[in-house]
């Protein structure tokens, strides 16, 4: 049933109680009564849950029995249920775009405290919709085919798990990692809570799968530099940075490393956080995937010192190049390699770009970077790791084994001056590290905590178990770390804290201080946000579309989130979220098409003067200039309905479906008109 021309407008209006979410602050009956008096309104009802089956059924019955040709629902955010009610409108036999939603929950009942005023606001908002909806036109949802390939950005445990899940189901995955090897933070850990299984034992088989999977194209040492297009059809440019080793020719034998003119490793090793040393040519770590060496042009003798302005390095040819000799016929070393930009087309994207740990230089009272025996938890992971710089022997920078160790929780977390949030994993990894210290040494271990937070399956049990192993648990935030004035020679430190359970100030001498640093958004997250057109929370984590209804989706269709880029979480949760992101991507891909909101803009060809004002403004490059007609043209498939060109067209010759001037002005008139007293 479509509205014929000149057929009188017949509006059905429904106001939802949302249980008490709306009804407690808005007099829904008064709203329904008021709207019943407005022009064109035929039915005006209130109901406890409009989104429920009976609620939707009510709309459909009214459309049929009352011959409605417009529907307005005042309820929650359109983000939540616009789709639901458009569906109900369509099921009743109307074009779904003869529907308009009024948000009286997020915009009204949830944000006001005066019931009378909130009710009046609901009336004004409802009237805006009632005045707008007669101008609605029937629109058609277009179906656009979806490209089945997937881009996954970041190859930590979340990216790896999502990639394997998608690839095993036959999808082609392009996995892009910034570092020379995949593995992320998890590859640096020794053991994992709460099961205490070795991180690498879990991770390395998955890394190897990624490296050899026929459906996964793995691009390490690469970064996404450009993203165009839209869900189903993203055009992504990936910059492959030069590692000066030809990936296809390198066998991972490491003879180049062995034969480098530097006989001893001399340069700080990033994977071991500078605690170990490497040569200019090196393997990132033993189990690195891909198992391909990399040359650091900053220190390799065959390069001139310093970057060129374009970021490249100039070959000096000053080295004897023993590595090239060692590589021999494999010919895998190429000092002239340049960054290469590759363009790929994918239908969906999973962001798994991870986190960074808090930089404890920002809490100078803990002495990190000043006293050599102050470590971050991640550094301790490397020290205690069997494949770390000390091969698992817990010794400090001075080569001595610590006798007493203090672990300071919540460094940079839950603090007005640094980060307000709880990083969720620190209590548990601190307990794990305490356990590992006890396992490796005879040291006495002190855990200084604010609150012991161990939620999650088996986590409290883990806490109880390791707490009985003989560590000291002190409830108190550490105020200060300073050198022991009585023992300046050994580098011993005093940890000062108030034990809030006994109300005593403690000054505990220790050999080693471990800072349990929190998790933070990566510094490049803001750039990525712009690049992929995502939203961020105020802390800088990528924002999910809805915390409960769409926890791995983003506000950009076709882009999903996995792992810590969305917020701090532990490994099980990261993996679970990666699986969920993969499933969401599947459900899009396997449907085969994406439905395109018809709220697109179009140029009135007769009226366009060809002034070109709109052309540079389109964020989706959907507008072009037709040199023959001398007018602008919008590619509807690329238009995302942002409205930028509509607002900027100086002669009003671009129109946007669902946001036509008359619709918007009627809405404004409606919301501003005086209400009955």
């Amino acid at each position, binding site marked *: 049933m479509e509205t014929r021309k000149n057929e009188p407008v017949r509006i059905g209006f429904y106001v939802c109680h949302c249980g008490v979410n709306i009804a407690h602050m808005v007099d829904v009956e008064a709203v329904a009564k008021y709207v019943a008096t407005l022009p064109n309104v035929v039915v005006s009802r209130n109901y406890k849950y409009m989104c429920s089956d009976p609620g939707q059924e009510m709309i459909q019955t009214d459309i049929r029995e009352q011959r409605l040709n417009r529907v307005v629902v005042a309820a929650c955010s359109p983000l939540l249920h616009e789709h639901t009610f458009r569906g109900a409108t369509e099921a009743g036999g109307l074009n779904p775009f003869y529907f308009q939603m009024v948000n009286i929950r997020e915009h009204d009942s949830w944000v006001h405290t005066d019931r009378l005023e909130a009710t009046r606001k609901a009336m004004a908002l409802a009237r805006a919709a009632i005045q707008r909806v007669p101008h609605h036109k029937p629109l058609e949802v277009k179906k656009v085919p979806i490209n089945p390939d997937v881009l996954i950005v970041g190859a930590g445990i979340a990216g790896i798990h999502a990639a394997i899940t998608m690839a095993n189901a036959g999808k082609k995955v392009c996995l892009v990692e910034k570092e020379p090897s995949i593995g992320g933070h998890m590859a640096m850990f020794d053991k994992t809570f709460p099961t205490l299984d070795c991180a690498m034992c879990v991770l390395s088989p998955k890394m190897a799968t990624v490296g050899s999977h026929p459906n996964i194209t793995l691009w390490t040492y690469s970064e996404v530099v450009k993203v165009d297009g839209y869900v189903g059809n993203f055009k992504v440019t990936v910059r492959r940075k030069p590692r000066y080793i030809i990936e296809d020719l390198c066998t991972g034998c490491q003879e180049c490393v062995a034969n480098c003119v530097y006989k001893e490793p001399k340069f700080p090793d990033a994977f071991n956080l500078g605690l170990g040393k490497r040569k200019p040519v090196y393997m990132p770590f033993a189990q690195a995937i891909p198992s391909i060496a990399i040359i650091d042009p900053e220190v390799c003798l065959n390069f001139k010192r310093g970057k060129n302005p374009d970021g490249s390095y100039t070959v000096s040819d000053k080295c004897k190049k023993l590595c090239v000799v060692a590589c021999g016929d494999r010919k895998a070393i190429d000092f002239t390699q340049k960054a290469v930009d590759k363009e790929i087309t994918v239908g969906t994207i999973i962001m798994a770009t991870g986190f960074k740990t808090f930089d404890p230089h920002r809490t100078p009272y803990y002495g990190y970077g000043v006293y050599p025996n102050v470590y971050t938890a991640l550094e301790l992971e490397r020290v205690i790791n069997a494949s770390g710089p000390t091969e698992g022997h817990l010794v400090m920078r001075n080569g001595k084994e610590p006798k007493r160790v203090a672990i300071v929780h919540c460094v940079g977390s839950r603090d007005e001056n640094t980060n307000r949030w709880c990083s969720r994993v620190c209590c548990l990894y601190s307990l794990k590290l305490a356990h590992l210290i006890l396992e490796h040494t005879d040291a006495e271990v002190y855990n200084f905590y604010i609150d012991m937070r161990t939620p999650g399956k088996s986590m409290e049990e883990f806490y109880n178990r390791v707490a009985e192993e003989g560590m000291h648990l002190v409830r108190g935030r550490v105020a200060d770390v300073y050198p022991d004035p009585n023992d300046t020679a050994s580098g011993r430190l005093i940890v000062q804290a108030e034990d809030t359970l006994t109300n005593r100030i403690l000054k505990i001498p220790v050999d080693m201080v471990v800072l349990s640093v929190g998790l933070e958004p990566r510094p490049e997250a803001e750039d990525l946000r712009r690049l992929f057109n995502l939203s961020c929370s105020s802390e800088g984590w990528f924002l999910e579309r809805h915390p409960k209804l769409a926890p791995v989706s983003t506000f950009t269709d076709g882009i999903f989130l996995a792992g810590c880029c969305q917020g701090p979480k532990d490994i099980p949760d990261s993996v679970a979220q990666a699986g969920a992101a993969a499933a969401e991507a599947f459900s899009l891909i396997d449907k085969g098409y994406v439905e395109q909101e018809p709220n697109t803009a179009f140029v009135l060809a007769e009226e366009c*003067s060809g002034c070109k004002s709109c*052309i540079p403004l389109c964020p989706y490059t959907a507008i072009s200039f037709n040199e023959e007609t001398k007018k602008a043209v919008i590619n509807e498939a690329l238009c995302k309905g942002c409205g930028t060109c509509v607002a900027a067209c100086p002669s009003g010759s671009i129109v946007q479906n669902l946001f036509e001037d008359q619709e918007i002005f009627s809405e404004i008139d409606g919301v501003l008109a005086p209400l009955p007293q």
Partner: protein
Amino acid sequence: MPLALITPNLKPLKPLMFKPKVAFYWCASCGGCEETVVDLAEDILGVVEKVDIVLWPVAMDFKYKDVEAMPDKSILATLLNGAIRSTEQEEMARLLRRKSQYMIAYGACAHLGGIPGLANQFTREHILKFNYEDGPAMANEKKTRPQLVTEENGRTPRLPALTNVVRSLDQVVEVDYYVPGCPPTPKITRAAVTALLENRLPPKGSVIAPDIALCDECPRKATKPANISFREFKRPHQALMDPQKCFLAQGVVCMGPSTLSGCEAACISGGMPCTGCFGPTSRVRDQGLKIMSSLCSNLEPKDEQGISAVLQGIPDPIGTFYRYGLARSLLRRKVNLPTD
């Protein structure tokens, strides 16, 4: 779209039996519009031949009571130029509306409020005080101001009062057609008069000009780049202008993209940018807002400081973007001024 008034499919109504009566009237205007009628040159004779001019204060002597005596609707059309600024103008507009079948707003002031509309940035008191007391050329020690009623030598001359704001004609009476321009070009005027006499009138409320922006007929159109981005704005006297190149491409504000065409790009052909006198297209409610939205969207800097620096090049935004259209725009007047 071609001239909206050329609608050959409209069949002419019954032929005119008598010489139709036409009135010209002026309100708050500079007299330029009157000039245009004279600018019709020999065509004016053709017009005079076909019509009976019953009122034309600039050229002929008629009295108020002559008009008042006419039967209602006895004038075919009144072409009224000038904005409505005084009680007398308002009264005349209402009287002529009553006596005329068609009320035609002639020229930018009647159409949009025009240059006098810029006075809506100030209160009436501010204007009177400046002009009779504070103005630099004013020697008025007694601070005498014109009085609405004075007693002198036994007579009581009365003066009309200034209204609170300047209004376009259609903010006072119903208007049937608009002839745009400051002043309307002879071509547009001829087209309007011809349409009227031949009874080929476009839909009521039309502006007698093609409903497309000026760029469409601008001789410099091809020189506007697609990726314009403004680093600075200059006024025409501040730089040596390339006479072939789009003004916007040279960083000079040109109202062309948001202004109706039909003037054949007269100013641009004379080496000056469009200042917007033909008003907005039928699809735009606020010409100034639209051109600002368009120009500002295309500024090169994206940070607040950079944006402010570029906008320094437009010292008088109201005078630039609302030169003719302030009174009839969404802004309309200084905040809190009454609407009459």
